[in-house]
């Protein structure tokens, strides 16, 4: 399977995605503007709080081509962060007290400077999260020692595993992904990740395998723990239930399957003011592979830059960024539906 970009798909163009989301394509759908909902909840304009997380997308290259991927990542994507841009991120970090750096991709480990970057962030005394797709650990011999590397640098590992069986997981992430993910989870468990008392955190990410919202995070976590423990002897810390956001390949799936209108209506109907108040874009700054700044990874993929005089990590200025309002659009309904959604799971 190719990325949307490599296959020349219309939805690879972020401007076209925005026309879809603004209801200029599916004109039978009349959804209230997200800004209107926020205003009703007393949250417009959406303003940031002190940044707690710097989320850095180190590249779109990935060994997987998942059907729901909002990054449109894959082996054919060559956009990756250079060491020079990583250094700019480190310089920015050094002048702030942002406690957590969240590394994402693509498969961040495929960036040739990934390990150097983790070492440098760790040396700055910041907590590092790596969004690991699991299969990268077993994809090539050179990645087999990633669990030990993560452990050595106190990395928190957050891994996607959309279901506790092969059929559902592989349908979303590709043939054989579940089996490889189980192998990788066993390798992480073997060095202590997810083991009680080890201090090594292994969190899993669940996202629905279709056009529906996630159920209770607590209930899903119990099922995953039971099933993965019983069937494979795997342990982990927490399960984060994440709502699929109508961006890129997931947007393509919604349109192709005839679920777009129904899904958007579902998100709007489930708008939760408490979840809206807790959205992660308020305490996160997102950096793209080429160093530009966004309010979140979804805005990054839609090329909705921060509304600030500061646009690039080289000009990072926490005080100036604190003055901005978060850039919103119709896809934001995804993070405010039901129990809310963020890279750390539910928010309400």
């Amino acid at each position, binding site marked *: 399977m190719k990325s949307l970009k490599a296959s020349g798909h219309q939805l690879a163009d972020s401007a076209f995605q925005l026309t879809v989301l603004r209801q200029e394509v599916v004109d039978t759908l009349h959804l209230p503007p997200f800004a209107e909902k926020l205003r009703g909840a007393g949250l417009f304009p959406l303003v940031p709080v002190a940044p707690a997380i710097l989320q850095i997308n180190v590249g779109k290259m990935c060994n997987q081509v998942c059907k729901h991927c909002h990054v449109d990542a894959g082996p054919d994507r060559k956009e990756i962060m250079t060491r020079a841009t990583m250094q700019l991120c480190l310089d920015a970090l050094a002048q702030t007290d942002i406690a957590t750096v969240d590394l994402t991709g693509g498969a961040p480990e495929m960036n040739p400077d990934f390990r150097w970057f983790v070492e440098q962030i760790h040396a700055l005394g910041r907590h590092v999260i790596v969004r690991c797709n699991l299969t990268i650990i077993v994809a090539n011999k050179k990645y087999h020692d990633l669990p030990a590397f993560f452990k050595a640098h106190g990395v928190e590992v957050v891994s996607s595993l959309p279901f506790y069986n092969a059929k559902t997981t592989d349908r979303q992430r590709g043939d054989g992904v579940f089996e490889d993910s189980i192998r990788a989870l066993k390798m992480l468990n073997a060095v202590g990740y997810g083991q009680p008392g080890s201090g090594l955190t292994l969190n899993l990410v669940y996202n629905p395998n279709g056009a529906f919202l996630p159920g209770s995070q607590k*209930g899903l976590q119990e099922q995953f723990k039971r099933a993965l423990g019983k069937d494979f002897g795997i342990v982990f810390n927490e399960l984060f239930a994440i709502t699929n956001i109508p961006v890129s390949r997931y947007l393509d799936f919604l349109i192709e399957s005839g679920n777009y209108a129904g899904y958007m209506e579902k998100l709007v109907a489930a708008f939760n003011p408490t979840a809206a108040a807790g959205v992660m874009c308020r305490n996160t700054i997102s950096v793209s592979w080429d160093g530009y700044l966004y309010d979140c990874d979804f805005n990054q993929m839609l090329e909705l830059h921060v509304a600030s005089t500061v646009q690039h990590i080289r000009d990072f200025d926490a005080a100036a960024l604190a003055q901005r309002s978060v850039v919103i659009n119709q896809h934001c309904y995804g993070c405010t539906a039901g129990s809310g959604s963020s890279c750390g799971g539910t928010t309400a």
Partner: protein
Amino acid sequence: MEKTYYNPADLAKFGNISDWQPEMGRKFFEYYGEVFKEGALTEREKALIALAVAHAVQCPYCIDAYTTDSLQKGADEAQMMEAVHVAAAIKGGALLVHGVQMMNKAKDLSM
């Protein structure tokens, strides 16, 4: 009157039944909400029971709603189909057990 008896769009209008009888509607939905909260049974178990009952009562609205709900609650396809088989077994069993009544009557009537 609509051209079909069932319209998928009506599912989202379920709450409208309160328009013509607010107090009973309110009590029903309050009860409904309470029933599906996690209790001695998990929300997933309740969704699967509802899915089975939806098939037994052959309600297309309920099948639509509880297929979605079962997926949302993390049920897998095998669990969902087993739930439908439970409903089928009870429906079939309920029919077949009346065969005993038939047998009793036949025996009463026969020499």
